[in-house]
């Protein structure tokens, strides 16, 4: 069989002759076909919930339930397109106002909290990573151990004790309760140390010769050279703080200091649940972030891989 193949010397007779019964090319085509079919199935599984949410936010409340059964085109696609749910949830319609809905304020406040955390953590984690990557200090390994050990503290499990501490500091029910605990992060410090170590030390030395201080080196050497790393960590911090739920839920009880995640979760605990409004609120809280991340996916994946493989 297959005497005409010149590659016999390199590809010896397979151990299982029945495997050759199907020509290799045909097998490859079949394998690719299976791959595509699985890929399409995956796309459906991952896109349908998002499509259901987005299209559901653009239809009228009654219509959502009308086409649930049997499954049809209109289970997903609105008959009448409408932005009423968005007007309600943002408190721009009389009905929305009567429910006291104000997602615009919650979005603005969450943006303010996120900005506070991202900016402060960029500053303080950069300084901390600079200390570990470049500065001299006696028993620096002990300081590093102090930082590493925080990684072992289970985050969600110590939220109640964290609340006790924040309450003792009289920070509960304030903006600062949402920002201060997160201005430094062991994960980010580690990622930044990796990025800073890749910058040649000769650059620092040259800057020192020119009379630059530590802050000068940070500003003119480290930050410009570690920009991709800083973008990555800023993205990770933004995602973390924008999506944070448990801490804002317990740390802040005042309605005017509610973050968007708490506001959405609250919509589901009312006596009457309005699906359209839940869809609309979820779209506002998630779609812009998803688009941002899909655009900057490269940076984000680099961050995940770094914290995942070097951590």
């Amino acid at each position, binding site marked *: 069989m297959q005497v005409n193949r010149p590659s016999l010397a390199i*590809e*010896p007779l397979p*151990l299982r002759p029945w495997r050759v019964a199907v020509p290799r090319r045909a097998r490859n085509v079949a394998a690719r076909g299976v*791959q595509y079919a*699985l*890929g399409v199935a*995956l*796309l459906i*599984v*991952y896109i349908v919930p998002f499509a*259901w949410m987005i299209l559901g936010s653009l239809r009228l409340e009654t219509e959502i*339930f009308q086409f*649930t*059964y*049997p499954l049809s085109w209109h*289970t997903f696609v609105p008959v009448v397109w409408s932005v009423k749910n968005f007007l309600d949830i943002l408190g721009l319609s009389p009905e929305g106002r009567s429910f006291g809905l104000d997602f615009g304020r919650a979005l603005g406040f969450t943006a303010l909290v996120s900005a506070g955390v991202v900016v402060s953590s960029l500053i303080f984690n950069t*300084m*901390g990573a600079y*200390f570990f990557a470049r500065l001299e*200090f*006696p028993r620096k390994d002990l*300081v590093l151990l*102090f930082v590493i050990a*925080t990684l*072992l*503290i*289970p985050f*969600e*499990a*110590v939220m*109640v*004790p*964290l609340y*006790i*501490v924040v*309450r*003792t500091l009289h920070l509960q029910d304030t903006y600062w309760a949402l920002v*201060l*605990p997160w201005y430094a992060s062991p994960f980010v410090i580690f990622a930044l140390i990796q990025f800073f170590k890749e910058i040649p030390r000769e650059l620092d030395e040259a800057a020192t010769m020119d009379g630059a201080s*530590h802050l000068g080196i940070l500003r003119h050497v480290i930050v410009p050279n570690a920009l991709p790393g800083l973008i990555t960590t800023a993205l990770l911090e933004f995602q973390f703080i924008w*999506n944070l*739920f*448990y801490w804002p839920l*317990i740390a802040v009880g005042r309605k005017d200091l509610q973050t968007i*995640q708490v506001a*959405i*979760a609250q919509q*589901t605990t009312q006596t009457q649940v309005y*699906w359209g409004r*839940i869809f609309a609120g*979820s779209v506002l*809280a*998630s779609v812009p*972030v*998803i688009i941002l991340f*899909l655009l900057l996916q490269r940076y984000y*994946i680099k961050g995940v891989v770094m914290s*995942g*493989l070097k*951590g």
Partner: protein
Amino acid sequence: MSSAVVAPAYPSPRGWWTRRRRSYLIAFLFVAPAVVNFLLFRYVPILAAIRSSLWQYSLLGGYGKFIGLQAYGRLLQDPVFWKSLTVTVQYVLLKVPAQIVLSLALAILLQREDRFSAAVRSAIFAPVVTSIVVISVIWSLMYHVQLGLFNSILTSAGLPRVVFLSNARVALVAIVIMMVWKEIGFSLIVLMAGLKGIPDTFHEAARIDGASSWQQFRSITLPLLRRVLMFVVVTQTIFSFQVFVPVYTMTKGGPLDSTKVIVYYIYQNGFLFQDMGYASALSMITLIVLLGVSTAQMRWLRSEVEY
């Protein structure tokens, strides 16, 4: 000779306050904000938890009289605590293996560098960056008994309805399915990076020797991916042990405590029953259990890496 050079530098004119000490102080100022943060918001809470579990404590009244280990004694006799620990372990044992196996299969399926694979990867990645609140709110509507999308699909296919979230036997599995769907993208990214680290020449050599795809997977991919795989198992176990948000938004721990994971039970005691002391004792136990789990896993990781 060397002492002649060093000598003038030492008893410095300013005594203790040397140039070197000054530079150490400046250096420390750089790390000080982070150190203060970790001290205040990561270490002090543990001390606060120990204190408020040993003394009577309430949010309004502050600390009262010393009660010793009473809270811990109560905990050992609390059937709901044991139930919540069991539920949490069940959740971890269902979710982590399913997630790892599926993400490994997907990593191999999607490792091609073409546009279609990239699009599928992006779609799988979208829920990773989406808030868990949004995901669990949308999924709880999809799981709805009468009006949910899943039951719409099931009944349209002529199958019986499934009560997802109000059935004690199904609710935890329903949450696991959703969380695997959400978090698979994360382990997928890490495993794909691991796959890229395996040189192509290994697979080529095996192919020339006539190894089947399965043989290549068993004897090349799996052993070389071992370290990355174990890392994903360790981190996902620790993360999954602390699951809270889906339980809060979808089931509130019910039905019949079948989804009452440990972190939700802590929340319930601290903020719904206003029993901060007991919640602190529960936090401490969870902390100790997780420290045990992570040390055991770290040791396992280290022993395997050295082979």
